[in-house]
């Protein structure tokens, strides 16, 4: 029987990836007072989604993608439901290839992240052109994609350390150490 305190800690460890995703999403959406930065601000919420969707898919469920997308759309002023759909598609595409790339090295994972992000960005742009009846700034979209790809290795390293801690702590709690 696991004591209540340990159970709470297990619960906290289980929601930690989601919590980090929400914090990064809030930082992405908040006002940063940097002129022109918004044009190429990296797509922060998708980085933890990719990492944890690949490493421990149970910690990144579809319902969470739906809620995250809904929050993003509501704050950004995009059509409601669009980001939810795209994030769920992102996770589905990730799960489809998970067994092939899960054990691969960082470069393969990074390349797959870049490819998935390009697909999602292209669909996002296409959908917004359709829904808002106008053109998107392709140069800014490309810059944002490049900056997101460039930032991913840093966050990947941080998530690696965090993931290691979560696993070791889970092991300690479940095996009574």
């Amino acid at each position, binding site marked *: 029987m696991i004591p209540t305190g340990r159970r709470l800690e297990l619960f906290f460890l289980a929601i930690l990836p989601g919590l980090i995703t929400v914090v990064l999403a*809030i*930082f992405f*959406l*908040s*006002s*940063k*007072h*940097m*002129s*022109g*930065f*918004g*044009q190429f*601000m990296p797509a922060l919420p998708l980085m933890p989604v990719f990492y944890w969707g690949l490493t421990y898919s149970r910690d990144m469920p*579809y*319902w969470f993608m*739906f809620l995250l*997308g*809904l*929050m993003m*759309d*509501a*704050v*950004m*002023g*995009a*059509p*409601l*439901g*669009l980001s*939810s*759909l795209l994030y*769920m598609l992102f996770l*589905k595409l990730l799960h489809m290839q998970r067994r092939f790339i899960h054990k691969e090295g960082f470069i393969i994972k990074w390349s797959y992240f870049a490819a998935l992000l390009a697909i999602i960005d292209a669909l*996002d*742009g296409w959908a*917004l052109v359709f*829904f*808002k009846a*106008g*053109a*998107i*700034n*392709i140069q*800014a*979209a490309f*810059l*944002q994609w490049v900056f997101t790809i460039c930032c991913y290795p840093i966050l990947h390293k941080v998530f690696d350390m965090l993931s290691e801690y979560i696993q070791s702590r889970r092991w300690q709690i479940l095996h009574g150490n």
Partner: protein
Amino acid sequence: MVIKKTRAAYVLLPGKQWLNRAGVALLVTFSVSLLMMSKSGNPAAERIRTDITDIMTPVLAVASSPMDSLHDAGTWFKEISQLREENARLQYQNAQLLQWQTAAKEMEVENRSLRNLLKVVPSQKSTYITARLVSDVSGPYVHSALINGGSESGIKKDEAVTNENGLIGRVITVGAGSARVLLLSDINSHVPVITEHTQEKSILAGNNTEWPTLSYLPATSNVAVGERIVTSGDGGIFPPGIPVGVVTSVEAGAVKVQLFSDVAKAKYVSVVDYAF
């Protein structure tokens, strides 16, 4: 360790998988429904949006505080380092403004007497509500911002939003404690403007870049680089005379405008209630 599956596991696993798939299908259906409702301008979709933004606005206000402090600290250091030059510049500007003040007083008296002579109906004065900008999304796809004031503060839809430099945009949705501002650079933004010197009316149209363009200018337009653009007041949404920007290029019929207000640097904005 080898985990041996029991008979119950073999029976329950497909059931659980089926439930998971049904759950995902339900979420997809719900997302598509929301998307369609959003596209058709369904009030329920807008209600969901404003409810979420009402919840998120205080969170975003807290989240943007560290960046606000950093920005303030940066500004403070910049001001300290430029104190001497700033002082000289302000003294020069003050001398110039005193000359303008004398001229303005003379013009005010003349204006008042001419208005009395012609019996001009006085225009209603605008009222202002100050709100804090908590989120500005100026990415490749959408250009909008959230402010921490809504219907409870007296903010209404279609009101103009300005800061000390000029026009920022207009309010498009209003929640109880938050409102969304469509920025001038957004592709859906169209503002009636007038060139200050040549007095040519046109529409400032956003294009999701930092340089909106002037549309519907007359073919014989004399707009040149450096011309100031202000709101014309046509349509009754924006008060006339709010500074908007300056023409930066005139190439092959495309007139690009550099906006005076930089929303990324703005911390507080004024919502203008203009009674037409």
